[in-house]
């Protein structure tokens, strides 16, 4: 199934060098979890601070069991803030 994987701010360094922008379209196996994707791209766990799936926050404790659905949009930020 296809999902979108987005890494923002300093985490964009973990995306492939030849990518354009912050978004990748990935083909993943059914049952893939948010934590699987974070590991696959070597994003340090403590840097994956704000994790959203379709805009909804996934707390750290749920990432290991949150299974992705087709067309899900996963977006991750390190600790950031604004105003």
């Amino acid at each position: 199934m296809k999902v979108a994987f987005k890494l923002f701010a300093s985490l964009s360094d973990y995306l492939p060098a030849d990518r354009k922008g912050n978004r990748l379209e990935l083909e993943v196996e059914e049952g893939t979890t948010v934590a699987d994707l974070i590991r696959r791209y070597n994003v340090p766990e403590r840097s994956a601070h704000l994790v959203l799936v379709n805009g909804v926050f996934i707390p750290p404790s749920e990432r290991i069991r949150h299974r992705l659905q087709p067309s899900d949009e996963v977006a991750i930020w390190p600790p950031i803030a604004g105003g």
Partner: protein
Amino acid sequence: MGWNRKVLRVDLTAGTCREEPLNMKWAQDYLGSRGLATKYLVSEIDPKVDPLSPENKMIMSTGPLTGTMASTGGRYTVVTKGPLTGAIACSNSGGYFGAELKFAGWDMIIFEGKSPKPVYLYIENDKAELRDAAHLWGRSCWETEETIKHELQDPLVRVSSIGLAGENEVMFACVVNDLHRAAGRSGVGAVMGSKNLKAVALRGTKGVSGIHDFKAFMKATTEAKKVLADNAVTGQGLPKFGTQVLMNVINEMGALPTRNHRDVQFEDAGKISAEAMHEKRESDGKAQLVTNAACFGCTIACGRISEIDKGHFTVKNSPKYWGASGGLEYEAAWALGAANGVGDIEALQYANMICNEQGMDPISFGATVGAVMELYDMGVLDAAKIGIDSPFGSAEALAKLVEMTASGEGFGKEIGLGSKRLCEKYGHPELSMSVKGQEFPAYDSRGIQGMGLAYATSNRGACHLRGYTVASEVLGIPVKTDPLTTEGKPELVKAFQDATAVFDSAGICVFTSFAWTLADVQPQLDAACEGDWSMDKLNEVGERIWNMEREFNNAAGFTAKDDNLPPRLTTEPAKTGPAKGLVNGLATMLPEYYKVRGWTPDGVPTAETKARLGL
């Protein structure tokens, strides 16, 4: 002692400058800056005064930590009755001006009356005098600062001034210092313009003396700086990406107000984001972002300094805009961009530069353009009336309208009234995305419920900086709460409002609160200031300031009916994103908020509450 204990009172009508002692009883009760200046203002003016009349006063004030070793201790506040809202106006700015006022030996300047001709105030330590500003009138903030420095032959003079917007009494005119820092909201620059006061120029060489317990202060400020440095947000996130990093976050969450809040997600958010500012342009191979920047004493350095694409249509014939300049920050990028559907980041930087150059709040300006574009889309306004085709997404319209608004040319004069007056004039008051006449900042309260209550009850009209529940609802600071529910939000909003009043009144930047709690500020204040500055007292001071502001607004004629949101946000559900189908639940939150505050169901502080707070 933290304070210089000295106030400068400037009677612009008579042309006199007079020194008077700071009311130290009030300093113990209201701390400084926002709180203390507001205490002076509410004690000296009629709440029903016309904000642009000579009877209104304007106060520039520092806090006890301004100019000290405390991180971010460079803030000062402009307090007055605001023309945009008719409510208390209190706008805070960084840069270097605030610290310089402290170094000159003053805590605050109170301006009263109206000068018969344009003047500027020059302060050199104890000496203060009004000087002729006829040659500065009609000049931008940038030209004014340069001219004053040249005349005084002193590049270290710090200047706060108004540009054309303040002179023309644009209702959302700012007071700009250090080229691109601003006391930005509520139209404080229009009040300054109405008084024929063009600028304040400062030179202070005395430093800050009289810290109550110097050893304890050095220890407390050093420890607090370590907290900022070790925190991933204030130590890394903000310096590298600035506030602009929120553009993609808030868009993903479906809370990015787009096209005058018709939508909650902007298809071009990525093009106007912090990440986009880091990317190299195809045209010249350069990134828009040049560097980050810090205000006085700041160890965070979130500021953005950028260079526009010299070939962009807005500046290709205007070399004066080609150099590095302030921006883009998140609020400006949103208001000039998503709010009116413009995804051209270079056009946003141009409009932002004009706002800085001519002293105009980019939030209220951009949001008012959003309303104009909606009226254009509906056929209520047309190109002949506006002076340019103005569909949503038009970078050309944005660039033209920012120039027209600052200079008061043509339809720009009407934009300068703000969205409330403009939408009322054209028969659609419901299209003004504002509270108490002040336009919303960059968070849609259908997707971040607590912000709806924070906006509705903000004492200076819609604002994110009075109670930034985004920190909790989005970023998990200090704890994560669900942005889509109303539960617990009244308590959360009150806690943020009261704590923010203390940060503002101390003379430090509220961005420290991404890493600090009041418990980190308390030892710094306790060491700097004489008297008891316990946590209990700070909590009480914050609540007292909030209630004092509320009492002023109530006396000015505001009622519970004004603690409201535009119908779009309470009746038109979000179309996309996590908040799809949701409206803001203000009606659920507001009665509970009044109870938590100790106010009557009509939003009036009860006698018990006032007695408890010594009001």
